[in-house]
């Protein structure tokens, strides 16, 4: 059974308000009953309703269940219960029926997931496969036409000059993005929506963004000439989604991983959560992506700063990074970050860029760096080099490090590092990063 620290528990909270209401409920006096077993912790908390809410947490993966009406996951009661568990030993007891039922249900569902899919008759299988192929063909046709049109638009921009781009109204870009959505190329549409930002930060940035789009469009037009993994990268950039169920079918060895850091960014109406992991054996990185629309809460968070044992399946790519987890088990809090020098990190980035030329950012861990500032820009620096950082937590990094060398993990985007966690003398702290 793993014991998480309160910081790690708070990193599970779907938003800051759940975190702070969770803290308020971490006072045992707010709970009518509390109990624990090897597998789970539970309690009853009096809310505004007549009956107290029943809250349970499965300790194998810190999943919470609660009878309250909140759609957040875990809800404040779940967070509160975990926090109590983190700070004091709860009385051991037999789980109440409602909890056992839930735990058994979870167990069954987990077994069902790993069990082979129900056998279909040969005919049925053929039928559904045929239909799927047909759908895919139709979509590919649509994308092809859409990209051809978009390619022309790109060429026109360059033919006529981009001097006027910064003064174009929002609708100018939005029309193009909307057409790409119609053409079922949402990945490109997202990149087009970022063009106004690029345009306002200078000709260089805009030309680079347009050239990147051009590269993807022209790669797609000769897709069949590319290697299978690069094909997957091009398709992902255009916006084809990978079938998760299909990925889940794969079996890979269980390995030990460490969750390194996390950042949530807002993209239009979508919140995107990027969670980074590192393979403890070969130091490879992996990225988990989660999305939430509008005000919907993020689900299925992983605590940050812990070691876990899991099957991790990479999405096919020439530069494998994005991945999904299969049956993760949290092991223990992690204590260190293992990094490299700034020079080595830049080399690593270059290497990644050569595999994926439209790479937007890449994870990196730096060892023995000092946090410094020249009064306007903040940097981390090792014995020989410095690297600009972008974060609202620069003072926090200064406070934690005290000017001594520390380890920093973050996302490097070719110009600066967005720090996501910092290790100071065997303790890891999360950083807020910065919304790009």
């Amino acid at each position, binding site marked *: 059974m793993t014991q998480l620290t309160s910081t790690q528990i708070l990193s599970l909270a779907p938003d800051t308000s759940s975190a702070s209401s969770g803290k308020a409920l971490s006072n045992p006096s707010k709970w009518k009953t509390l109990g624990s077993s090897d597998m789970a912790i539970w309690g009853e908390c009096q809310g505004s309703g007549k009956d107290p809410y029943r809250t349970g947490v499965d300790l194998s993966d810190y999943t919470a269940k609660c009878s309250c009406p909140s759609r957040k996951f875990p809800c404040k009661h779940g967070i509160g219960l975990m926090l109590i568990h983190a700070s004091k030993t709860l009385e051991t007891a037999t789980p109440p029926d409602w909890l056992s039922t839930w735990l058994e249900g979870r167990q069954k569902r987990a077994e069902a997931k790993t069990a082979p899919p129900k056998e279909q008759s040969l005919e049925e299988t053929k039928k559904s496969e045929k239909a799927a192929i047909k759908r895919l063909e139709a979509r590919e046709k649509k994308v092809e036409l859409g990209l051809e049109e978009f390619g022309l638009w790109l060429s026109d921009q360059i033919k006529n*000059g981009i001097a006027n781009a910064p003064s174009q109204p929002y609708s100018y870009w939005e029309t193009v993005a909307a057409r790409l959505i119609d053409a079922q190329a949402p990945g490109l549409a997202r990149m087009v929506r970022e063009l106004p930002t690029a345009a306002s930060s200078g000709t260089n940035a805009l030309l680079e963004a347009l050239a990147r789009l051009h590269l993807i469009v022209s790669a797609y037009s000769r897709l069949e000439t590319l290697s299978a993994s690069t094909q997957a990268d091009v398709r992902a950039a255009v916006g084809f989604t990978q079938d998760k169920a299909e990925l889940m079918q794969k079996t890979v060895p269980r390995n030990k991983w460490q969750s390194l850091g996390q950042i949530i960014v807002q993209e239009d109406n979508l919140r995107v959560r990027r969670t980074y992991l590192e393979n403890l054996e070969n130091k490879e990185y992996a990225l988990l992506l989660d999305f939430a629309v509008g005000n919907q809460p993020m689900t299925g968070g992983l605590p940050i700063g812990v070691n876990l044992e899991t099957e991790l399946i990479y999405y096919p790519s020439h530069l494998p990074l994005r991945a999904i987890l299969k049956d993760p088990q949290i092991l223990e809090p992690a204590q260190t970050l293992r990094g490299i020098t700034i020079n080595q990190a830049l080399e690593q980035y270059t290497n990644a860029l050569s595999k994926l030329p439209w790479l937007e950012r890449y994870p990196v861990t730096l060892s023995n760096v000092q946090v410094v500032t020249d009064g306007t820009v903040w940097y981390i620096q090792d014995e020989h080099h410095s690297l600009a950082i972008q974060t609202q937590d620069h003072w926090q990094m200064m406070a934690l490090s005290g000017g001594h060398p520390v380890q920093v993990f973050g996302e490097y985007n070719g110009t600066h590092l967005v720090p996501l966690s910092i290790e100071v003398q065997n303790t890891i702290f999360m950083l807020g990063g910065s919304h790009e």
Partner: protein
Amino acid sequence: MNDLRALTSSALLGTERSPLGILENPHLEEARQSLEPHGQAKQLLGTAILAFNLTRAGAQASGKIPSLAPAAADTRPIIPEAAQERLQQLFAQQADLIPEWLELANQAGFRMPHKDLIALLEYGRQHTDQRQKILPLLDSRGRWLAQQNPQWAWATGDTSSLETALETWETGSKAARVLALQSIRQDNPDQARTLLESVWKSEPADERKSFLIQLQIGLSEADEPFLESCLDDRSKEVRSFAALTLSRLKSSAYNLRMANRAKQLLQNGKKGIEIVLPEWTNDLSRDGIEKTPPHGIGEKTHWWQSIIGRAPIEIWYSHLQLTALEILKQIPKMWRKNFIDSILLFGLNGYWANALLEYDAKMISENSVMATLPIDSRQKYIQKHIFSKPLQEQIYWTHWMSDPWDLSFSQSALEWILSSGKQVLTSKKKHFGSSFHDFKVRIHLQAFQQWKLKPETLSLVKQLEQVIAQDKYSYSVKDFYEYLQDLITTLETRAAMRKELQP
């Protein structure tokens, strides 16, 4: 890189008008030539992505920039984890308990964990009255951090010993020096004054006043000569603050001068008390009385009011053979209202406040009298006039009381809550608003520990719970019950805080 410039300028104007020419970098030029068949626009875009990525890939790490020497090791033990979590909780939702937490943490001799330093520095930036308590908690790391951000300049000083405080006084920022002087004054009042005197002339007016304020701590006769010399200061603010401070020294020459002036202004005449208006003399200005009256008052009346208000109350009995209360009763009617308003407005030290309350509490606004009344008199007044009446919708007097309340006053307050609770249960009053909202941070914990075990308290809580369980309750009952719960939880939290912060 010239090639990037060629690419962007061609893209800016458009390839129609400004086609892309030969590039310097052979790799880029090769790409440019191979892309020619695709048309000028695609040629430019294709070459551009290569150029940008070559730049990115070839980027060299920048050199080092100068850095500060790292922070020295901390000297105090770190705050226990439970107390750290408690502070987080207070910051999130119960900021009114933070001052008490700081006080306790300070007494126990702890230091903050590094992760919470910024929250504390920011808190101190906004709450100047808490800075003295925060300083020792920062320890070496916090002071080191504060040196790097001008907004935290107050926290750069070290007041943990006389030696370090003296050093801060010599070399610190303005805000840090105020705190250093404050801490020196607490333990060595004479030394603090001597330090202040030695630099007095070279300090700007603003700082002279901030420093002078610190002499309020441990004020004694020994301070009089210095304060008296401050009456000749260039700054009006310094002069009037020095006058106020002198008036608090019972046997000061200042008080004697005021007494002699005041005695001229109220005389025993044939028909009772007679009013004599003063003439202006320049020594009045030196003693902090303003020559120009505020709008709506004649100048002589204004001088008269200012002098009477500032003269020590004890002089009247020997002078007129009358107590303050008797003076209030016998003063000519047309002067009475004026007189009362003025001693509230221009008087110092609440000399008259007790007499005023006794004379007629209704006639004067409680707020203005309370402001000038010493704490023990305020307590007596509240216990006598407020706790005897039923609970009111609004409680407006808690800010008259300093924190924390003493045992006996806390006991009366808790008794008052009990009797109010009984009224709430029986009466049909609609709304009690946030009535005793801030009792919870002020009540003496010992009083609470006794009170919560009393049978009356237990039975009141039980009765309230029963009424609420029946689903037929008025809002006043529910409000009262919720406030009572809040009061109890908060006081329990305060008790827990003490345990968590035991040294």
